[in-house]
């Protein structure tokens, strides 16, 4: 009976593995600090920032841009606590966040969506408020079929929710939601799968999906049709900036990245992610 037979090789391997891991993690952290940017925050901005980051990496060999997700509130908190170099938020900064600086890289709108087969063509702001606060619970009260309305709301901490509430001057506590969802596509899928549902999502995603055969319908808001075009022209009332957030005036690599993300060089990326690029 040799010693090697007594101990399964896996144990030996794992010990070796753990040691080597410890070594490489220590060695790495010091020299990557200067050439690495960490971005965290809004899941709406994350895919856009990741694509911008990839192009930035190509232009600056040796630089790494790591994009993490988790929601706008997380982006704000991480930027404040220095857990990230740059935070991402898909809304304006609030008054109590004026210790931070924000840099808009693109614009997006939020629109109300219903199922494709829903005969309703438009809803007034008052009707939308009444539906979300539970005063209207049946489609027949707004001129639709006799069916109960399924109200789809966004989860706490999502900036889509905060913008929606702010625009309609509601409190989250007033909302009588039947379904609470997280990301945009989840909202679209929830509405597409329920004839009686109503929800609100990012216009870019909704327009793309409606054009590609997903069963949803975008409702106009305040008489303005919900489209990227109308967000671009500034006519659509419920629009929001997509922001990068920093605790102090950006310097070095962060400054270069923010300038790059706001430049013409990324307009095609912004459009590919169904957002509206900044005007020149």
């Amino acid at each position, binding site marked *: 009976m040799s010693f090697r037979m*007594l101990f399964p090789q896996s144990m030996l391997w*794992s010990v070796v593995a753990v040691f080597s891991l410890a070594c490489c*993690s220590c060695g790495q952290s010091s020299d990557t600090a200067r050439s690495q940017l960490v971005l965290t925050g809004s899941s709406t901005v994350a895919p856009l920032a*990741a*694509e911008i980051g990839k192009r930035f990496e190509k232009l600056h060999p040796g630089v790494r841009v790591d994009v*993490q997700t*988790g929601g706008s509130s997380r982006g704000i908190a991480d930027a404040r606590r220095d*857990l990230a170099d740059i935070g991402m938020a898909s809304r304006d900064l609030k008054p109590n966040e004026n210790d931070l600086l924000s840099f808009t890289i693109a614009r997006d709108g939020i629109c109300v969506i219903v199922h494709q087969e829903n005969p309703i063509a438009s809803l007034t702001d008052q009707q939308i408020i009444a539906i979300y606060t539970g005063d209207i619970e049946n489609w027949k009260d707004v001129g639709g079929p006799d069916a109960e309305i399924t109200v789809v709301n966004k989860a706490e901490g999502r900036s889509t929710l905060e913008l929606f509430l702010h625009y309609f001057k509601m409190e989250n506590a007033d909302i009588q939601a039947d379904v609470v969802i997280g*990301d945009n*596509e989840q909202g679209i899928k929830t509405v597409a799968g329920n004839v009686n549902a109503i929800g609100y999502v990012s216009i870019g995603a909704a327009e793309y999906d409606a054009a590609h055969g997903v069963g949803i319908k975008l409702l106009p808001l305040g008489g303005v049709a919900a489209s990227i075009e109308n967000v671009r022209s500034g006519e659509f009332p419920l629009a929001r900036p997509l922001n990068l957030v920093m605790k102090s005036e950006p310097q070095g690599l962060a400054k270069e990245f923010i300038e790059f993300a706001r430049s013409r060089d990324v307009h095609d990326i912004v459009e590919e992610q169904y957002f509206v690029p900044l005007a020149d």
Partner: protein
Amino acid sequence: MVKEKAVKSQAVQFKTSEKRSIWSHLPEIIATCAAWSAALVVTGVFVWILADVVRHGIGAISWTFLTAAPRNAGREGGIGPIIVSTILILAVCMAVSVPLGVGTAVLLSEYTSPASRFGRFVRRSLDVLAGVPSIVFGLFGNAVFCIYLGLGFSILSGGLTLSCMVLPILIRATEEGFRSVPNDYRMSAAALGMSRTSTLLQLLLPAAVPGVIVGLVLGIGRALAETAALIFTSGYVDRMPGSLADSGRSLSVHIFDLSMNVAGGDRHAYASALVLIMILVATNAIASWTANRWLGKRILTA
């Protein structure tokens, strides 16, 4: 008159006995039907899911898809770096949890009696741990591994967080494996003058292999399926990882992002799901094969 009555009562008696025989069989028939239909429903659901994923995903799978890096938020390109990250996260998770898990299982089954207070306490806490929602592990992993230990968003943080999640499953299954070894083995080994350590390594460990395999299969399944815990620990970066200190997106996170956050990402989400299922089947096969080969055969050759 009397005769007629007797015939009638006989007929009634005959009727009731016939009835009773049907009634007495009924529960058995129902039970059989229920068992069969339950089995059919379970298999049906599995086949349905699999067929759905294969139908939507098979068209997008190609060698380029398996090796190329994702482009345009994953709508185009492939999942090469994501497969590598997934396998690395799983490797870290298993390298940490298997030795710890088997060790704890040995302690629980061989060195403590089932009734002892310590054993009961450890077992109870493991059961509670197994029921903790994965998002809690994610937040714990983020606070401890990423921030407190300074590992940041990295494959290492993700793998370590997953090993915390997998340990309870692994330990309980392995412990069952040890407990199912007949006590005669231990007695005979003691009678032959074998030491406790060599009894354990030469006899009990190989005999407990089926339990270890069950634990591995369940643990790998849970680790590969995990999304919530990994978003906060191993992260969202879809670059090819250069070391274990890099952030790496796992397949489950990629599927979640493509289907819930990226408009037009469904096709690649299905294809990635199909790849995930294939990896799951492959790693399970490899795990059982290696466990059998390294541990299981020794009991025959010894």
